[in-house]
């Protein structure tokens, strides 16, 4: 008991000493103040002309994939693109992907997201996703992160909740290996996960499908790069069984040709 008390006293003394010493340390230290700190009343510029135009907005769009996937039974056509409009902090972001397979549109995933920059390399995204193709239509609320991970790895992860109370997730990543300054090898993969199966859309519970590619592009110029690729699209786990039951292709490796292009 006495021991405990003395220990408490000692702790208190140490603490107060710390407080005192930190107090004196602070007295020697600079109180941080930026000479260019924002002021309550903005400067009035002559003719209201701002000398720096740092609040601009930009519009860009990119087809990361715009490709034909060859197979003897018929060539599929696949696109995966996004576009955004906005400034440094706030953007409207549009994502769209889909596969045209023997005249039938599948994997049509379209998202309209508000995007907020939150750190040097990361954005938060929130909005809606519509599964819109020749299958049944589904609507989801979407929320996720998107950005540049360590080692300059492009990454996005989005969680979804559907109008029917189901959950889903999508994770996508890619990496650019520069073979030369114009010849670039890009492994890319996208995974979809669902909490419940949805046979109408060939979605299975758990890890449902993967769409991946190894693309070798040549940047004729930055905004236009034809590529050759090996792509894989397939169902996994439960979805694989669903596909098999429906006598569908459960997964196949294809030789692909496409163009990566942006504006």
């Amino acid at each position, binding site marked *: 008991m006495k021991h405990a008390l003395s220990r408490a006293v000692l702790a208190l003394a140490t603490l107060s000493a710390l407080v005192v010493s930190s107090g004196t340390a602070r007295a020697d230290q600079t109180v941080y103040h930026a000479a260019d700190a*924002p002021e309550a009343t903005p400067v009035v510029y002559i003719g209201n002309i701002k000398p720096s135009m*740092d609040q*601009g907005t930009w519009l860009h769009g990119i087809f990361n994939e715009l490709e034909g996937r060859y197979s003897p039974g018929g060539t599929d056509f696949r696109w995966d693109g996004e576009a955004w409009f906005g400034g440094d902090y706030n953007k409207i972001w549009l994502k769209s992907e889909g596969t045209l397979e023997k005249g039938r549109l599948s994997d049509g995933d379209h998202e309209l997201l508000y995007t907020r920059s939150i750190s040097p390399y990361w954005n938060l995204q929130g909005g809606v996703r519509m599964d819109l193709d020749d299958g049944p239509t589904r609507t989801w609320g979407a929320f996720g992160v998107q950005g540049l991970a360590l080692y300059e790895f492009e990454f996005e992860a989005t969680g979804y909740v559907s109008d029917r109370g189901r959950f889903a997730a999508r994770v996508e990543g890619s990496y650019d290996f520069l073979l030369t300054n*114009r010849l670039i090898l890009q492994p890319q993969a996208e995974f979809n996960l669902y909490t419940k199966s949805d046979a109408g859309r060939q979605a299975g519970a758990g890890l449902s499908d993967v769409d991946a590619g190894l693309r070798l592009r040549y940047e004729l110029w930055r905004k236009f790069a034809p590529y050759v690729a090996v792509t894989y699209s397939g169902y996994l786990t439960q979805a694989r069984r669903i596909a098999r039951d429906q006598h569908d292709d459960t997964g196949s490796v294809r030789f692909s040709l496409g163009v990566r292009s942006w504006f």
Partner: protein
Amino acid sequence: MTFPSRIRGGLTRRRFVTGLGAGGLLASLPRTSHAFSSKASSGIIPPMPSDRWDLKIGHTRISLDGKTMHAPTAGGTVPGPILRWKQGDTVSINVTNTLNEPTSIHWHGIRTPSNMDGVPGLSFGGIAPGETFTYRFKLHQSGTYWYHSHSGMQEAMGLYGALVIDPRRPDPNACDRDYVIFLGEWTDVMPDDIVSNLKMQDDYYVFRQRTAASFPKEAREAGSAGAALSDRLAWSKMRMAATDIADVSGAIYTYTLNGHAPDMNWSGLFRPGEKVRLRFINGSTMTFFDVRIPGLEMLVVQADGNDIEPVPVDEFRIGVAETYDVIVQPKDERAYAIFAQSEDRTGYARGTLAPREGMIAPLPPMDPRPVRTMVDMGMGNMKPGESMKDMDMSGDMSGMKMDGDMAGMDMHGMDMKGMDMSHMAMPKMEVDDPGPPPINVENQMRAMMPIDRTGSPGDGLENNGRRVLNYKQLRATRPGADLRPPTREIILHLTGNMERYIWGMNGRKFSESGPIRLKLGERVRFTLINDTMMEHPIHLHGLWSELENGQGDYRPYKHTIISQPGSKLSYLVTADTPGMWAYHCHLMYHMDLGMFRTVIVA
């Protein structure tokens, strides 16, 4: 697979010289009261100074190196006419705007009243289409300067020219020949498109990155494949590129000398034995040049318009908006090349000094492009070229890891140590210290241990076997006009996010910051800490920036000071002219994307 070294970025496949340089459009020169007795792009200074000038700003269709631009110009040429003034005179310049948008002319480095400085919003309302504005101010200074538009992106498209001010007293640097050497760039890509491209992909114009193909060479240089690989991994872990030298490159730029593309070979004549003065002006938008004249020693006699004790050099780096006057004395009856390679080595501006027209001097090969090192990252204690893997091994640097968390690196403690040191030399003084800049959307990193780099000629020039000018060598020929010690220090961090292409100070861009307020008559020390990986030529309008480079009272007076990456430097300012002044990085796209502040002297 190999590619030609001068890949045009695939952006411009035309590659022919029109033979019709900017100077070929003299027919469009306005008929003005003052006769432009010299070709603007000849580099020849008008024979006499004048205190009255008329300058017509209009659109001119100019083709250079196969790149055509409907450019805003002064007097129909790029560069515009060389204006020659005389110290002590009160000059009047009537600037008439025939564009369909507002324009302005800023007299770079000239000490004018605030309302004559030519910055729309700060000095005046700009010059509306169809209007004539008369600039009128007394010249207190002499030397080599330049002028350019401060409206929109007009400067980036060609609205600039040289100023030469004769000293009242006999010029100690008078020479037999006297040429302006105006360095610039030319492109047919619109500035707004360049910015938009950089916003989408920050390395859009960089085609000199480390690749699989360049790996064997790097491994040889680093000593082993492992060392080269770990260096690469360290950079990519930080999501940065050691090859990030210039944002805009020779992929779209043709580098120009007096408005001449390299193939047009601008020539200045001399007789062997004559002294030739070359007034170098870097009027480019985004490019630093490394200048030399193989076979000739250059005597640097003036920096930013102010005479300095002559420094003999083989080479010097000239940042955007800086000027250097050099004297050369070619003795032989032969041609000498003026060779100005861009810092990123994607091209060069070129001219010739020759005893006769039409002579060509051999050009030296381009140097290897610089690679950024730990010094540029603000890890000052490490030597250039030292592997980044050493950084990871040091316990102190653990904060540098920039782990997967989105906050990026946290080096708070380190920074504060660095900050404290900055005050040690200065007793009782008011200090505006913003503290370590935040890591946020607008700022990617902090220089943990910024060092004094005024003794370094700059990245890519150290230990190249030549005598290269550095800032420590600049010594004024007379003591400063104001020898009071500063009573206040303003510390500013130069910050940015290359990935998002946002630039600023203290982690904020212009629109999110207040003005910097100086009291009239106040003597202030500005301390710049560069937390980015790039050089920033910082220009303060209206007031001199006296670089503290160890020359005491003979510190050089400059208007534009290069802050090297990972460095810390300071300069003194006497706030003797009231008004609103622009203060910014002179890389135009950095300025326009936020590295700009308003300085208010009242």
